[in-house]
């Protein structure tokens, strides 16, 4: 194929999307960098596929495709685009953009069928590992995303983010360690003023989050602040793990499309969740240095994140109106308060049942009870009215 100049390329583009006639300098900006690309034909071949679905996505595609082609084969481009469109259908423009940005972790491994690690492969040692961390019973199970109900750590059934199997294996360990830390560090049960201290059965966090105009956004903010706090905790508690995952965590920081503009609160927090800089640096925003000192203080707890969440919410809300809220960093996982509360409820029931069992067993040993039971048995043989009370 012959090299084209930008003008020829723009015209080529118009023929591909005819009869539409978008603004010429938008088109020019989008295709400019492709002029000398040896894979130009394959790249352009996808334009008629994407354009009718979303013009913006098509421009995005043109901006990102060269980076993607570093990772994927030219022949895999059509299926990559198809998958991008799947994401568009399900999650809209942002989801599709995110998918394209994450080409390395989302697509490459799967296409090449290497490097991926399944939970089933690591569970043999990961389960004793988390039980060691927890100092007792804690289960593992597969799920879409990482989260915990405090009795079980749910982790993705497969991890393919990195090329190397070793890295994905370590990623499992990192995910599990974060989820355990949320439990250990009381993320789900911050104390609120006026509440009995140490009350593990409160649903205070949910009430707190619901008090904001956008509870989902508040939850995202709170959970990210907690992830940051837990990161600092893990640096002290499991320094080896945090050292060995430094490079990996940097790679997981979601690339953001905007350059130059002032970074949003959430994107700074996300980034710091990965970098975990413990000392203020030159480029650090002033507001963040305050957060840093609060979250790294010796007495930092989930209550610290509650306070910071209150302080930062308005600004985050403001920013969310201008800019799409990205997914949090991978190891943050999801905050599933409903499962946490349900698990607590089940646990409480078990304890109550145990207590009732114990109490009734004790009552039955009392002389009065013996007399009573005998009396009952005489009256109604085989069908004591003291049902549910099991003599031991």
């Amino acid at each position, binding site marked *: 194929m012959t090299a084209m100049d930008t003008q020829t390329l723009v015209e080529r583009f118009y023929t591909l999307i005819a009869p539409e006639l978008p603004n010429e300098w938008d088109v020019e900006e989008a295709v400019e960098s492709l002029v000398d690309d040896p894979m130009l034909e394959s790249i352009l071949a996808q334009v008629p596929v994407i354009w009718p679905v979303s013009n913006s996505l098509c421009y995005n595609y043109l901006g990102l495709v060269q980076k993607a082609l570093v990772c994927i084969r030219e022949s895999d481009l059509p299926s990559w685009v198809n998958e991008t469109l799947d994401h568009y259908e399900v999650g809209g423009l942002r989801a599709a953009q995110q998918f394209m940005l994450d080409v390395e972790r989302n697509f490459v491994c799967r296409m090449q069928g290497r490097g991926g690690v399944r939970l089933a492969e690591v569970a043999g*040692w990961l*389960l*004793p590992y988390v039980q*060691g961390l*927890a100092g*007792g*019973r804690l289960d593992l199970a597969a799920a879409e995303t990482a989260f915990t109900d405090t009795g079980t750590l749910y982790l993705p059934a497969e991890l393919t983010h990195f090329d190397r199997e070793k890295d994905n294996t370590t990623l499992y360990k990192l995910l599990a360690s974060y989820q355990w830390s949320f439990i250990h560090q009381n993320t789900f049960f911050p104390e609120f003023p006026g509440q009995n201290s140490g009350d593990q059965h409160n649903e205070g966090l949910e009430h707190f989050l619901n008090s904001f105009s956008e509870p989902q956004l508040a939850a995202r903010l709170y959970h990210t602040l907690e992830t940051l706090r837990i990161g600092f905790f893990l640096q002290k508690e*499991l320094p080896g*793990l945090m050292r*060995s995952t430094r490079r990996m965590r940097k790679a997981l920081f979601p690339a953001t499309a905007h350059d130059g503009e002032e970074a949003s609160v959430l994107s700074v927090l996300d980034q710091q969740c990965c970098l975990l800089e413990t000392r203020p640096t030159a480029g650090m925003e002033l507001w963040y240095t305050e957060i840093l000192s609060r979250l790294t203080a010796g007495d930092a707890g989930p209550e610290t994140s509650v306070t910071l969440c209150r302080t930062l919410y308005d600004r985050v809300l403001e920013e969310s109106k201008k800019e799409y809220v990205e997914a949090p960093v991978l190891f943050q996982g999801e905050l599933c308060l409903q499962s946490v509360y349900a698990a607590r409820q089940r646990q409480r029931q078990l304890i109550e049942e145990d207590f009732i069992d114990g109490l009734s067993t004790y009552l039955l040993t009392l002389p009065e009870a013996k007399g009573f039971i005998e009396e009952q048995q005489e009256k109604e043989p085989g069908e004591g009215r003291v049902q549910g009370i099991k003599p031991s």
Partner: protein
Amino acid sequence: MEKDRLQLDEHRIVDEPYYLSTGSEIEVAEAAYREGLPLLLKGPTGCGKTRFMQYLAWRFERPLITVSCHDDLSTSDLVGRYLIRAGEAFWADGPLTLAVRAGAICYLDEIVEARKDTTVVIHPLADDRRELPIEKRGELVSAPAEFMLAVSYNPGYQSVLKDLKPSTRQRFVSLSFDYPAPEFEAEIVCREGGVDTELARTLVRFAGMTRSLKDSGLAEGASTRLLIQVGKLLNQGIDVNTACPAAITESLTDDPELLAAIDEMASSLF
């Protein structure tokens, strides 16, 4: 007699052994000693039972005669037997008899391992009779006030076959040992293993993690003893990533998955 005295001197503990008390065990043992009651020390391996006995022996200024029980250990091994020398039979006291006669402390380590017939001689010694029957000589030795009987046993790997009979257990004042609370254990590891506080704490945390693997099939996690051993390897210049597997991981299990899990714990911590 002279020989016995020399033999006993070997069992005297002159220098105060380092023992960090973690509860009221010293007071209880002291009271039991004054009342002539025997002691039963329960607890996992390497948690300080032997060290405690050494400390008591020093404190009470009595020789400490320790017998490690095993499944071949018979009454004769404890009480004594006739030996033939130069064609003549003569009686040789066993360690228990020696201890009773001398008013020493006799510590039967891992008592459940011994043959069942040994309990026959322990029973009259462990109740208010405080006497040791030596059947073969037709002799009944009364224990002096200074004599103390102590036995240890590890409930961690008790089995139905190898459990103490109630009639045996119920003769003893029982002290339940466990690994000391983290701060205490770190202090012990720091001092005995010669490592700094920070590292001792991490080692204790590591041990704690291995001790919660019962559900995963590890009956006993890393003991205080193992942590001290890591410390000693480190002092010899072995690096932590080599010392931990050698002194801890491999000593705990052969199961590949448990090995992997424990390795991952170590690499997370250090």
